[in-house]
């Protein structure tokens, strides 16, 4: 394990940016922090002082042109693979990338757009010093296992970060830092243990979240179908593809979509299999806690708590999954 004092973060990022494009949460002062390429002189927010939106917006942008047509010819818009380093995403977000990998990279047709940003991306995942009230990592998986999804795990100990390299690439990128002594290592482990609270029993959750549970009606009554839960989620991967005319041709682009919207399942015939808010709320929960465990062997929710904080009507996924509202 290595040590990185907080005063040395700017220098570390500067050093890193010589070989890799650094992506980290930054804020313009008024809004929540968002992941983007860090411009020289910009200070990323990795001290937990501000609400950080999920890194999904960088790995899967809200607007991405897949190809264009120009004078009858198709112009490919697949981005070039570059070397990136993503710093300051939560450990849970790093695990969410594993869910994304199942969706976008498994099978015989991996998604080249996502892969271009994922293939050579050193992940520096953060374990924040202050556990926000909404966080429930431990309820959705074995937090210690998630470390495998990272190149380096950064434990925030207040005045410094303990950096634990998990891969050769991670070790290479942190080799210039000083070594951490045993007391720091113990502090780092203790910090992670605080996040590993809660039980994971996929089978019990599955039984509680029965399709025909009468409680769904009650759970979804206050939902306003705004979809903020899905837009804020680091592991929601649904998108829409649309075509638009533009000067001299057309473009096909990908944009975000949400299962909470009425037109998500609306068919050309006018029939909508999920006509109300109840089936849509149920879909979000079942997809993450029932269908994805069946498909991928892992829960689709990573417990980052963003939906809990962002939900304007205070729907708390923990209470639904934990059984307080569905039993």
């Amino acid at each position, binding site marked *: 394990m290595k040590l990185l004092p907080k005063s040395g973060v700017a220098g570390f990022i500067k050093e890193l940016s010589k070989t890799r494009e650094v992506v980290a949460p930054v804020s313009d002062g008024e*809004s*929540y922090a968002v992941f983007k390429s860090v411009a020289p002189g910009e200070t990323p927010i990795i001290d937990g002082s501000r609400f950080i939106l999920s890194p999904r917006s960088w790995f899967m942008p809200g*607007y991405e042109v897949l190809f264009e047509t120009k004078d009858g010819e198709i112009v490919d818009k697949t981005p070039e693979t570059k070397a990136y380093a993503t710093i300051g995403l939560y450990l849970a977000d790093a695990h969410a990338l594993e869910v994304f990998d199942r969706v976008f990279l498994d099978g015989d047709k991996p998604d080249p757009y996502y892969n271009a940003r994922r293939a050579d991306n050193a992940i520096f995942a953060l374990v924040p010093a202050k556990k926000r009230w909404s966080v429930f990592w431990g309820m959705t998986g074995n937090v210690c296992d998630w470390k495998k999804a990272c190149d380096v795990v950064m434990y925030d100990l207040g005045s410094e970060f303990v950096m634990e390299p998990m891969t050769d690439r991670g070790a290479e990128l942190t080799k210039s830092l000083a070594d951490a002594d045993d007391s720091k290592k113990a502090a780092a482990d203790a910090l992670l243990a605080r996040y590993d609270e809660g039980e994971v029993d996929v089978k019990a959750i599955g039984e509680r979240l029965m399709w025909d549970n009468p409680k769904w009606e009650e759970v979804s009554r*206050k939902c*306003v179908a705004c979809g*903020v839960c899905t*837009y804020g989620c680091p592991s929601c991967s649904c998108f*829409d593809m649309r075509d638009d005319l533009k000067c001299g041709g057309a473009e096909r*682009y990908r944009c975000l979509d949400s299962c909470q919207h009425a037109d998500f399942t609306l068919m050309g015939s006018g029939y909508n299999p999920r006509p109300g808010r109840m089936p849509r709320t149920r879909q979000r929960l079942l997809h993450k806690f029932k269908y994805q465990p069946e498909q991928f062997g892992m829960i689709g929710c990573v417990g980052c708590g963003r939906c809990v904080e962002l939900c304007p009507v205070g729907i708390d996924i923990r209470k639904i999954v934990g059984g307080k509202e569905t039993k």
Partner: protein
Amino acid sequence: MTDKLREEAKRVLREGIAEMVIGWAEGSAEFKTTPFFAFTEEDCDRLVWNTACVNNLAKYLTDYPKEKKIALCVKPCDSASVNVLIAENKVLRENIYVIGLACGGVIDPIKAADAGTCELSDATAKYACLHCVHDKPEVADIVLGEAERKLTPAGEDMPPFEERRKYWEKEFDKCVRCYACRQVCPNCYCEQCFADRTDPKWTSRKPTAGESWMFHAVRVMHMAGRCVGCGECERVCPKSIPVEKLSREMAKYVKDIYDYTAGMGEKPLLGTYKDEDYDAGVHEE
């Protein structure tokens, strides 16, 4: 205060004034409450009233048929939303029992979590509360409590005219077109929003600054004389775009030109047409 509210809610259900009471209940954290639907007197014991009661519950009125008898807890700004719905004939006054609550401002749960306190102050207040124009509930069958306003009113926050294009281009560039601002608005009740229409296609789903500009501009036009400034749209925005600034600017024009404040009149703005009204661009000499 919470006790008085519970008593009143119980009375309303007991005497059959309404079939259900829509209010707030305790949420997952001290700075978070959640909308709550009470059907029995027992349920009423879960109702609360505090500075974390941020939701504008008038949103739920249009979920139910007009004939249903509903009791609704409102803050002064929410009450103005109810008044807009009444003026536009979306709800019937006689079927709605309005429990007004005196309010000195509410907190924004995310700001409060960042600050680590749920004490109401200028830093933790919902931004719209710093621009509040509602002293008392406009429509209410009963008003509970008294409140003192301690927040410092915010001044003009629209950038100067010359800088606006640049400012809003930057803001709208963030928009992901989730339409949460529309969904949470009590007075956005169209069955199909123009933004969801594919034929004709008014605006593309593409979340570029230009297309998002179209959506927000049309929304603010549709809300002219209807937006009461509760600020829910701004609060829910997952990208923290200050959309309420546009509506506030619009409200100023409506006040200047037609001397009308949304939620204060018996008729909607368009229903107050007079021949001598100012109509720039139509009959300009």
